[in-house]
């Protein structure tokens, strides 16, 4: 946690808006070469945190170092080292793809030769190489997000702050978007990105799971899943409702969710409960195809944390 050369260090960041504690004593570090995810639902405090780290919103208390600079005292001092892509990135719809890039290159004072080299590489990675002359307003949602990223990265920042960059982007474009992020790590940048999609957490090196302004957990995705008390079991069935009725009163189940192909349960002990559940299903004649333990998701952990009080709740 206390990496001496952290590219981002947030310490006890707190921000209150009328009637809501948006960010509550949030602390974490991000190292160079790391993709760190702020993960949580709408209203968890992700955007507020990113705004404070980008130096566009002052916290009520706490401190933050970004690229070694106190972002609260001297927000201007770190600007050249930061690339911040807010949810609505300012693309000009009536300019072409390349004109947008040139515009942002000029703002950051990038020399044309460098700009051209970098633009070429980023556009190719984004799958936008053949669309240089297209008006930005004529791009699809996913392409616009990727162009926003290209523009935000046209200078060579040390820290990249991205606010829900893949919101509304389909899975294929999402993958390309992540491929660009991974390719930047070789330059030693630190990337802090937020997402409301818990499955996207799996793509980060480490994540901070946020709920109502508070940090629930902060760790690697693999380690996070080990925090889940118990195990997740999947039962594949053509009649999930019947399976649920049969198992509703079975022992050792802490959660039972209907999904399209069956039922997901969280149980205290998989080795013990699977045979019990199987016997119960067979005894009742409920139809099912498979019962097995599956890898928990970040969502399973999130739900367990908020419902089971693994982490503290807010009033």
């Amino acid at each position: 946690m206390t990496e001496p050369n952290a590219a981002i260090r947030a310490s006890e960041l707190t921000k209150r808006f009328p009637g809501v504690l948006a960010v509550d004593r949030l602390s974490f570090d991000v190292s160079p070469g790391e993709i760190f995810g702020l993960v949580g639902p709408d209203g968890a405090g992700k955007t507020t945190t990113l705004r404070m780290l980008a130096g566009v919103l002052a916290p009520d208390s706490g401190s933050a170092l970004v690229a070694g600079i106190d972002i609260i005292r001297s927000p201007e001092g770190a600007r050249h080292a930061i690339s911040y892509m807010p949810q609505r990135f300012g693309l000009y719809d009536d300019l072409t793809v390349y004109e947008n890039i040139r515009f942002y290159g000029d703002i950051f004072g990038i020399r044309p030769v460098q700009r051209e080299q970098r633009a070429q590489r980023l556009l190719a990675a984004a799958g936008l190489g053949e669309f240089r002359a297209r008006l930005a307003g004529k791009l699809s949602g996913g392409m616009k997000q990727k162009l926003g990223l290209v523009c935000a990265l046209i200078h060579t920042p040390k820290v990249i702050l991205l606010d829900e960059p893949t919101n509304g982007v389909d899975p294929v474009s999402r993958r390309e978007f992540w491929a660009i992020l991974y390719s930047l790590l070789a330059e030693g940048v630190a990337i802090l990105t937020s997402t409301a999609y818990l499955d996207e957490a799996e793509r980060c090196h480490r994540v901070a799971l946020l709920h109502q302004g508070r940090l629930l957990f902060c760790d690697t995705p693999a380690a996070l899943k080990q925090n889940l008390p118990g195990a997740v079991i999947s039962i594949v069935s053509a009649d999930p409702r019947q399976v649920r009725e049969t198992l509703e009163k079975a022992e050792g189940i802490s959660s039972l969710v209907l999904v399209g192909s069956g039922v997901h349960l969280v149980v205290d002990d998989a080795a013990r409960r699977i045979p019990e559940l199987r016997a119960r299903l067979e005894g009742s004649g409920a139809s099912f195809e498979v019962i097995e333990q599956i890898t928990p998701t970040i969502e399973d952990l999130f739900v367990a944390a908020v419902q089971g009080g693994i982490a503290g709740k807010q009033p």
Partner: protein
Amino acid sequence: MTNGDPSVVVRDLVKRFGDFVAVDHISLEAQRGEIFGFLGPNGAGKSTTIRMLCGLLHPTSGHATVAGIDVAREPEKVRQQIGYMSQKFSLYNDLRVIENLRFFGGMYKVSSSALPERIRWALDMAGLTDRESAITGTLATGWKQRLALGCAVLHRPPILFLDEPTSGVDPISRRQFWELIHRMAGEGVTVFVTTHYMDEAEYCNRLVLIYRGQIVASGSPTELKQRAMKGELLLVECEPLGPALETLKSAPGVMDAAVFGDALHLVVPEASEAVHTLNSYLSERGIRVKKIETIRPSLEDVFVSLTTTHAQSAPDRRPQ
């Protein structure tokens, strides 16, 4: 769960806008009580199809019935049979909860004798019984979402259309929402979900993947994960990751390679064979393999695999 009584029937449905074929001979059936997921990237033709099914857009050719009503011949009648809810819940934030319900009751022409009972039902379903005079805008997202659902089904439609209904909602509210949807389906409502979020797709009984106006795969989430993907998936943990990715992209037999956190995901034709060849392939190139194992594809893997395969095999007839 279903009683074999199709409530949405689509045959060879086509919609052209000029030269552009937005929907290209789509056929499908959704059964009564089924939660039917309609997946596809942006611009695949999902919304155009839904608009035709809601009677808002006239098909170029083909045929579609919703609750037995022909959508091209009797679009107004179709609209009485459906409820619609989108991610941007169309609630009035400055109205009270009860005022929103009355407004939608009026819009859907719920009779004044039936309305009080339906409003009570909706409040109960949304968990808002004691908060009916709260200003809608002050509610937490989960409650707003359930209120929007209540408004959409006040007139007891047999078919419910949901457009990315739970995107961005916290996981607990989302699970509560899908619980309600599964309950409605249990009572015989056909639920038609459009989304490109795979975690929403997991809640559907059956999925249809649409790409460039055509159906490219269909089945239950489990079936799609087991069968629809071309090839098998490997997880590779190795060092250094960047050079490994570069070399694997052009390695023999690797169909796709992508970074996933600290590991790579590879698509290969046959996993057990590839494990051997890749191990030596990587070590010959100075890459240290820490772990290489078969993993199950997620719905997202299937989705990406199918759409990219089709992108390579079929020319895009649609303007960019």
